C-alpha cells in the first residue's frame, strides 16, 4: 500500500475584493477504502509530432488499463509555452476541455470498460509438415504431423492484438483491448485468416465458437491543437 498525497491550492489577490485562497489535500485511496492506490503508469512525457499522422490524436489511457468504477485518478499537463496551443481532452467521444499552455488537470476516472472479443479456433484433420495458418499477421508453419503439436505452435506465437490459451487442439484467442474487432459476429466466424494446406483437404482451422466484443466507452483521447510538436506530461494512478 502506497501513500500518495494530492494537494490543490487556488489563490488570487484581485479576482474578488476579498483575497481568494483555498487549499485542499487528499490521500489517493482505493474505492470505498482507506487503503492507498498501488498502481501507476509512472510519470511520462508524450510528444505529439506533426509528421506522424497517427499522432494527431492519441489514446492516452485505455479503460482496459484501470479498474472500472475504481478510484482512478489522472494527471495531465500541457508542457507547451505557446499560449494559444492547447490539447483537447476527450473521455471517449465526450469533449471535456482544453488544456492551454501550462495548464494541468487532475480528475477521477471511472474507466468504464467494454468486453474483450474472444473466439476458439480448433486444429482439425491431418496436418502435414509445411502447412500453415496465418492470423493477425502471424504465420505458423507446421513442423510436425501431430495436430495437437501444430495447435501448440499456434498458441506459442505472440499476436499483436490477441492473447491465446490452449486446450488440446483448441486455441482460444482473446483480444488485448476491448473492442468490436470484427473477427466474430455472435458465434459466426468472419475472420480473414489464411490457411495454406497441401491440397488434400484434410487440414482445417475452423473457428468453433466466439463472442463478439464491445468497445470501451471511457478511453482518454488527447488531440493537439496544432500540427507542430507539442508535449504532454501525464500520469495515471489506478486500482
Amino acid at each position: 500500500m502506497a501513500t500518495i498525497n494530492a494537494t490543490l491550492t487556488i489563490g488570487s489577490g484581485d479576482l474578488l475584493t476579498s483575497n481568494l485562497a483555498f487549499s485542499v489535500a487528499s490521500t489517493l485511496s482505493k474505492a470505498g477504502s482507506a487503503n492507498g492506490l498501488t498502481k501507476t503508469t509512472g510519470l511520462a512525457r508524450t510528444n505529439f509530432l506533426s509528421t506522424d499522422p497517427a499522432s494527431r490524436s492519441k489514446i492516452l489511457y485505455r479503460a482496459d488499463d484501470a479498474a472500472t468504477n475504481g478510484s482512478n485518478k489522472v494527471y495531465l499537463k500541457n508542457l507547451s509555452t505557446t499560449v494559444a496551443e492547447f490539447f483537447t481532452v476527450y473521455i471517449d467521444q465526450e469533449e471535456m476541455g482544453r488544456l492551454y499552455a501550462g495548464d494541468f488537470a487532475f480528475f477521477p476516472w471511472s474507466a468504464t470498460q467494454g468486453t474483450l472479443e474472444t473466439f476458439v479456433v480448433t486444429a482439425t484433420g491431418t496436418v502435414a509438415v509445411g502447412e500453415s495458418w496465418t492470423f493477425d499477421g502471424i504465420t505458423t508453419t507446421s513442423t510436425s504431423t501431430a495436430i495437437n503439436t501444430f495447435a501448440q505452435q499456434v498458441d506459442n506465437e505472440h499476436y499483436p492484438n490477441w492473447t491465446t490459451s490452449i486446450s488440446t487442439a483448441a486455441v482460444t484467442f482473446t483480444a488485448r483491448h476491448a473492442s468490436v474487432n470484427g473477427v466474430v459476429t455472435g458465434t459466426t466466424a468472419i475472420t480473414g485468416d489464411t490457411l495454406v494446406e497441401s491440397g488434400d483437404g484434410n487440414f482445417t482451422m475452423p473457428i468453433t465458437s466466439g463472442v463478439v466484443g464491445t468497445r470501451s466507452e471511457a478511453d482518454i483521447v488527447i488531440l493537439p491543437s496544432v500540427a507542430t510538436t507539442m508535449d504532454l506530461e501525464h500520469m495515471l494512478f489506478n486500482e
Partner: protein
Amino acid sequence: MATTTATVGITSADLTPGMALGISATTTLNKTGLTDGLEIMDMGYGTLTIADSHKALHEALGTVDTSNYVYLANESTNAEHYIEVVLHDTVIGRLYAGDWMFTPWNQSDSVAEWSIQAYGGACAYTYAIFKSSYVLPDSTQGTLNP
C-alpha cells in the same frame, strides 16, 4: 484583469520503489489562448443526498470552446460515500471521501453540463468554476413588463 493561480502537488515516497514522486505544477487561469486572467467565478457549498437524482452542477451557458475550469471536492469523511461526476451523458469518475478534481471545461456545446450524484450516503461538496463568459438562464417569469 485578475490573476488567479492554481497549483497542484502530488507526492509519494513509496509508490515507486527507489524513486520518490514529487509533481508540482502551477498555472494561471487565463482567458482563451491569452495571457489575460479570467474574471468570472462561481463558488459554493452544498450537500447531495442519495435520494437525489443527478443534479446539474453547472450548465454550459457560456461561449463554446472557451477556457473554463472546474474545481469540485467531496467533503464527506465516510470512505464509502462518493460523488459520481458526469459530463453531459458520460461518466467521468467517482470522487470518494476527501477527493477533489480540477479540470478544464471548454463547454463544447450547449449540453456539455456537469452533473453530480451522491452514492452510499449524503455527500457535502464544495465547488468553484472559473469562466470566460456566462449567460444567465432565462427567467421562468418571462417578460414582466410587456
